[in-house]
């Protein structure tokens, strides 16, 4: 069956479902509560498992994982080389969660090149190294303009790049996930890897900020 007719079959079914959805509570908190209890009673979800999932994203997975990768690349040139050649493998060496970071690519910022990551079609994000995406990353203003007007978007984050810097925007249209390797700030020669990691922000690893000392 062609993709076109599949699309049409789906639209009829989906129109039916739209009707059902319009009868559900408009308050999402009530709607979630009803769905959770329905699914729990049917044995389709275990509320204790939901607790565990929430706990993982509240306290176990976040940008500090990505910051470790960046700091290691700053202090260890061989690691940096491996990261830029095969980020999936290099990040795997640090034994962190795989998940949506299965196929990773690291993008190196230099004085002449600045990388910026977006997902214009949904909100693909390197979850294992950065945790859950911030609301702005998932928002229409960012998704629509990061590709069209990256310099304007960066200005809204307070980052004004000189004309001569090349901007490379990466639209995450497949399962490849991108991590920006920011420039190491000047004056940090004496810091330990751990101290360096503490300087690295989520925004710098998406490419909307620089790391400052």
């Amino acid at each position, binding site marked *: 069956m062609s993709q076109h007719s599949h699309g049409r079959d789906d639209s009829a079914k989906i129109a039916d479902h739209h009707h059902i959805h319009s009868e559900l509570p408009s308050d999402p*908190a009530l709607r979630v509560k009803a769905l959770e209890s329905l699914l729990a009673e049917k044995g389709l979800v275990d509320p204790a498992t*939901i607790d565990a999932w929430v706990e993982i994203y509240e306290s176990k997975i976040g940008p500090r994982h990505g910051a470790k990768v960046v700091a290691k690349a700053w202090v260890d040139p061989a690691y940096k080389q491996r990261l830029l050649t095969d980020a999936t493998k290099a990040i795997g060496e640090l034994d962190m969660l795989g998940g949506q970071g299965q*196929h990773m*690519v690291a993008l190196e910022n230099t004085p002449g090149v600045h990388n910026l990551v977006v997902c214009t079609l949904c909100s693909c994000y390197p979850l294992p190294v950065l945790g859950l995406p911030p609301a702005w990353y998932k928002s229409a*203003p960012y998704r629509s303009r990061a590709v069209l007007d990256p310099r304007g978007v960066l200005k809204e984050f307070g980052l004004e790049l000189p004309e001569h810097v090349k*901007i490379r925007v990466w639209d995450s249209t497949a399962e490849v996930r991108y991590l920006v390797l920011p420039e190491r700030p000047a004056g940090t020669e004496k810091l330990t890897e751990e101290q360096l990691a503490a300087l690295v922000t989520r925004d710098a690893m998406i490419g909307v900020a620089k790391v400052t000392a």
Partner: protein
Amino acid sequence: MNSIHDMGGMHGFGRVEAEPNEPPFHERWEGRAGGIVETMSFPPGFPGDRFRYLRETLRPDLYLTQSYYEQWLYVAEQILLEAGMISAQELRDGRPAAGEAKRNDAMRRDVVWDYLHDRTHTGRKLEQGPCFAIDQRIRARNMQPEGHTRLPRYARGKIGTVTRHHGGHVLPDAHAHWQGPAPQHLYTVRFTARELWGEAANARDTIHLDLWESYLEPA
């Protein structure tokens, strides 16, 4: 499908508003919604790409006004309704129909971590070699599929250069519609900002997309 989710290049949504010290979840229900979607029982063989496709089928006015986790809820409901795992009546009532047997195979809490670790393997070995080479000029096809696709409208018909080959990957256009993984070679393609947006764009800037072989033709 050509709907509102395909936002690249649009105007009118205003400034990007970043919230300082944003928590993972703004309200408790957001975490519950996320947890339901990620840990609930799925229909057997459910293709992950269908999740994205179903989100795209949300009515455009709702897509723009509902929050991210509300949209996840819609998708979860849609998946379970489609598969007949819940009925519309049960969803309205918030409780199972009388006499329904309870399943006992829901994901247990001790396997969540491993589950998050193991999913999303979209790489596939292909017998046939890639059609396109690094540095080759290609044109993204001008196509308007009614179903799911990962070729954004802003790149269609535009000329770019292949910069990387990722091997075979599951094709979302087929997978989202239960047509199997149908893997194809996946490439990173570089487009100049000027090719996409015209002469007013900065001549140094480039936009890079990951595109499947059937999205491309030689230029």
